């Protein structure tokens, strides 16, 4: 059984990774781990309103993957951490992930600068990392 880690952050860009998975992996022998890392709580600047908004966006993003990955075995996880990039790498290692699929950068408008998360993950992950343009 192949284990694929799909980190998402709630943006449309991160959800595009779902399409790649559908096109390139077999539903019979693939399990998808959808992971969202909530960094907001640890930044210390969020008031309750922002945290709740972030939470809602996360839940909406995770639910959006249901439609795209409906034929796959999917396990969803939301964690809170001070560093999304470190959490992704640790999660992949601890769960013996075979491949990480992620978008290059999810911030809109910053088209020429590589996302810091994908850059970190590609450097330190124990498994292959596919970075989508």
């Amino acid at each position: 059984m192949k284990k694929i880690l799909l980190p998402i952050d709630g943006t449309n860009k991160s959800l595009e990774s779902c399409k790649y998975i559908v096109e390139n992996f077999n539903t019979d022998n693939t399990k998808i781990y959808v992971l969202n890392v909530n960094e907001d709580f640890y930044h210390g600047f969020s008031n309750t309103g922002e945290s709740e908004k972030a939470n809602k966006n996360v839940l909406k993003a995770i639910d959006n993957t249901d439609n795209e990955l409906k034929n796959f075995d999917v396990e969803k996880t939301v964690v809170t951490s001070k560093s999304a990039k470190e959490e992704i790498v640790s999660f992949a290692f601890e769960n013996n992930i075979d491949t990480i699929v992620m978008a290059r950068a999810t911030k809109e408008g910053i088209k020429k600068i590589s996302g810091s998360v994908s850059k970190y993950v590609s450097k330190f992950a124990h498994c292959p990392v596919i970075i989508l343009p």
Partner: protein
Amino acid sequence: MKKLLLVVDKSKAEFNQFLAEFIVNNYLPEEVEIEAVTVINDHYPYTITSVDKKIITKDKMPVFNKISSILNKYKVNKHIFIDTDNAQRIVQFAKDNAVDTIILTNPNKYNLPNFFVPYLVNHSGIKVLVLPYKSNYGNKKSA
């Protein structure tokens, strides 16, 4: 048929072996066409070193030996370029040849900042598949 670009390391045969074995374990020969590419830096006004000259031997291309022996059932096209900018050359080649995915091992040899992978990712508009080389995870805290 997918076209894969393999970034071949001109100094570390074990990286290339790792790369070739990944292809064998994940793709069937009939599914892919492989462009194996290595780029030799030509930092003007410095001349190419004698070590590099051995790599450039056109008739034998020894830098591709590992790749060729493991991928003997695959269609592999080999390319050596001389350029001042490795990453830029590879991106240009990938775009010119309608490559589907660029595949390379993550060197991380000396725990230095890696600019090569981000450049490929940012400027190619193509999927980039980065393979870890063995001990990367263990090095994460010291980088």
